[in-house]
Each structure stands twice: as structure tokens, then as C-alpha cells.
């Protein structure tokens, strides 16, 4: 039966009644209408589209029970741009055309943000490690690497074209 829990999402605490068998992803999308977080693989943790940041770490919201998200700080794509300004990662994605269909982008942005919050100047390999669990079928990842290397203050292998 449903239980009333409170979740701290993007700095706002909201109470929501959930069945214990619902995941954070299901609650974000269906109960809180925060549809920026996507489901791509059927909630099996195989695509990274549902990535959110929980207590500073990137996690698959499809592999977290809503019950386990209590008293944790959750950041979703809706909370990344603040003060009416895009986050540098988001700006870089725009500037480098690192977006095509954009379905995987919220997840990748959050994977990247978790990395940059810990390590502002990651290497190309650290960047790859951070987004290795985020599948993208459109871009071939090239522009996404470019964008993130730019944020890290490094040039891509071939640098800017």
C-alpha cells in the first residue's frame, strides 16, 4: 500500500504518496511530472537516460527505489540551469551541437555535472568514464566529447574544427 514520503528534488522538499515498488524514475515522471528525466531501456539500467544526481553522485533513477531516495538530495535536469542561466555544460552542448534528438542529453548532462562538480578539469579519459553508461544513438559522441573537453578547459583531440 502507498506510503507518504518526502523527497528533496532540486532543493524543494515535496511530499508524495508512493507504492514501495515504484522507482525514483517512475515517481519523478509520473507523480512529480518532472519529465525531463527519460527512460530508454525499460528501467533495466542499460542506457543511462534516467541519470540523476543523488547526494552528489550520478545514479540511474530507474535503479533506485523511491523509498531509498528519502532524505537524499536529488538533482534532475530541471534543476541544472539556475538563475535563468544555462549551466556551462548545457551551454557547451548548444555551442558544439552535442545534441541531436536530445533524448539522452539530460542524462549525459547530469553524468557530466557530477564529474565536473568533483573534478573541474577532467582528462578525456575521465570524461569518457563518466558518460560511458549513457548511450547516444545520434551523435557518435564526437561533439559531446568536444563540448565536455571545452568545459574542462581542454581541446578535443583534433581541437575545435
Amino acid at each position, binding site marked *: 500500500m502507498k506510503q507518504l514520503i518526502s523527497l528533496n528534488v532540486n532543493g524543494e522538499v515535496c511530499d508524495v504518496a508512493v507504492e514501495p*515498488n515504484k522507482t525514483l524514475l517512475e515517481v519523478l515522471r509520473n507523480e512529480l511530472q518532472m519529465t525531463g528525466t527519460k527512460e530508454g531501456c525499460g528501467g*533495466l*539500467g542499460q542506457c543511462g537516460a534516467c*541519470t540523476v544526481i543523488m547526494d552528489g*553522485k550520478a*545514479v540511474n533513477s530507474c535503479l533506485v*527505489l523511491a523509498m*531509498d531516495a528519502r532524505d537524499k538530495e536529488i538533482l534532475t535536469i530541471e534543476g541544472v540551469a539556475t538563475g535563468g542561466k544555462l549551466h556551462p555544460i548545457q551551454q557547451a552542448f548548444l555551442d558544439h551541437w552535442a545534441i541531436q534528438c536530445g533524448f539522452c542529453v539530460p542524462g549525459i548532462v547530469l553524468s557530466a555535472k557530477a564529474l565536473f562538480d568533483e573534478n573541474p578539469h577532467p582528462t578525456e579519459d575521465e570524461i569518457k568514464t563518466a558518460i560511458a553508461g549513457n*548511450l547516444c544513438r545520434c551523435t557518435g559522441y564526437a561533439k559531446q566529447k568536444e563540448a565536455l573537453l571545452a568545459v574542462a578547459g581542454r581541446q578535443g583531440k583534433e581541437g575545435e574544427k
Partner: protein
Amino acid sequence: MRKKFEYFEPETIEEAISLLVKYKGQARLFAGGTDLLPLMKQEVVSPQYLVNIKKTPGLDYINPDNGKGLKVGALTTLHAIETSPVIREKFGILAQAASKVGYLQIRNIGSIAGNICQGYRCWYYNQSHDWRKFWAPCYKRGGDICYADKGAKRCQNMVLRSDTAPALIALGAKVKLVGEDGERVIPIKDFFEKTGNRLRGDEILTEIQIPDQPPHACGVYLRWSPRRALDYPVAGTAVIMEMDTENSLCRNIKIIFGSVAPVPFEVDEAEDFLRGKKIDSDIIDMAAQIVRDSVATKAIKFGDHSADYKTTMAGILIKQSIEDCLKLAK
């Protein structure tokens, strides 16, 4: 997820155990969730009671126990292990193995105990309810067929695809299992049986105990998977070698393979062959041959990878890891 369950968050391990006892057979222990949740969504398992110990205190720690090795709490995340300074310094092979699992988001919530206790996998067994519902249940599900090997008399194809298990076996680790009649500590190499691990329905794996390694011991975990991330190993090997660096003699060596057969196994023949030998490329080639011969008898086809290919990869991985050990020893 469709199937509902009754949900518990025990405050203590004892309480958790009592719940497991009370609902024996119908309850599942829930820790990281990266393995169990997908199984539940696919309705491969559908527990009526879920005992979530994620918030249960006293299960998340990495304690160097000087002189007596290292104690790792069951709930320690794989990411905590791959980044732990003490583990990287003294038990590097475990950090390597943990760092290979899935991808970062998985390692951020996946626990070490979960990676050890994860379900054995099979391409037929690990399908969704919709995929399976029109097919007769296989042996593993109480039926009388193995889809991977239709002639077989019993389940043939379940494979433990854990990265950390082979590394821990090589390290000679022990696991502490706590159940209704007290606790037992068993070597992790005895923990895995062909049909599943030895965890009883009422038991919780609470701690991994890793003994200190002899001086000059260096370990390497290597794995091969078709994709460079987001993949299970097709073959993984953990090697710990004690070198007598002056005259590059191999004092002692442990060679464990994972994922090629249902459970991880040690290749004693290769170990005996290498022990006390001066390691050069010819010796390594011979060792690789011994490994291939041994693996060939145990390897099984999994999904789109044949037993032969796994055997080939085993030979390549063992060479590579011995060479890497030599580099480390220098």
C-alpha cells in the same frame, strides 16, 4: 514495476534476519539493487516481501585491521572500493575489478556484496515476463527443459558474471554470513556452487575479510568484453604473483578465472607449473597453453560467445596479466 511487495527497512541486522526467517522463501534481501531491481522488473524473481538493508547501520565500511588484513562492509559501493586509497595501495586487484563493473552510475549504487551475490545469468532465464510467458519454464524455474542445451538433463547455462569474485578468491578473502543460528565465516572460493551461491534463505553476507598479502605480491585483474563499457565480462582473470625480484623467480602465484564457466575457478596446473620458475616469455607461453587446456574443459557457450572463444581469450588474458604482474614487480 508491476508486482507489489511488502516492504521493510530493518534497523538492525538481527531484525533483517528475523524477517528473512519469518518469510522464508518469499522474502528477498535488497541492498544496492542494481542486480535485483532489473530481475524484479522482468519478473525473473517476484518476492512478496522485500527486506531493504540499505539504511541498516553498520554495513558500510572499509576497515584496515592492521596486521590482520582488511574488513569491508557488505554495503560498501563498488565506486567506494575502486577509489579507496588503502584498497588501491594494498589490494589493487580488487580496485581494478570493481572499476570494471558496468559503468559509473551502476558502481555508485551497486554494493560489493551485491556484486558477489548477484544472480547467475542465462540468456533464456534473464528475459522479461512478456518474453517468457508463452514458453514452458526451464529447469531453473522448476520446469524440465534447458533452452540453452535442449538435450540436457538439468540447467546448463547459468553463469556468475561477477568481476570482483575472481579477484577476491585470488586474494584469499573470506565472507561472513550471519543467519538465524549465528554467523559463519567461509572462504569465498567455497561460496559459489554450480547452481548458485551458498547463502541460505535466512542469511546475510555482512562482511568481506581480506588477509594481508605477502610482500612482493602483485595482483592484476583483466577482463574481456565486446563493448568497452556497459557490459559483463565474457572472460575475466585475476592473477596474484609473489616475485623474488632479484632473480625474477615466481615464488607463488594464484590464477582465477571468472565468467568463462558457471563459477570462478582456480587453475592449479598452471600455478604448480609456474611456482619456483624463472618467468620468461617461453614459460608464459607454456603457462598459457596449460591454462587453455584447463579452461577448455570447463568453458561453456554464453549468448553469442562460444566456449572456444572464451578459451582463446583465457589464454590471452593470462599472458597479459602475468606480464603486467612482472611490470608491477619491477
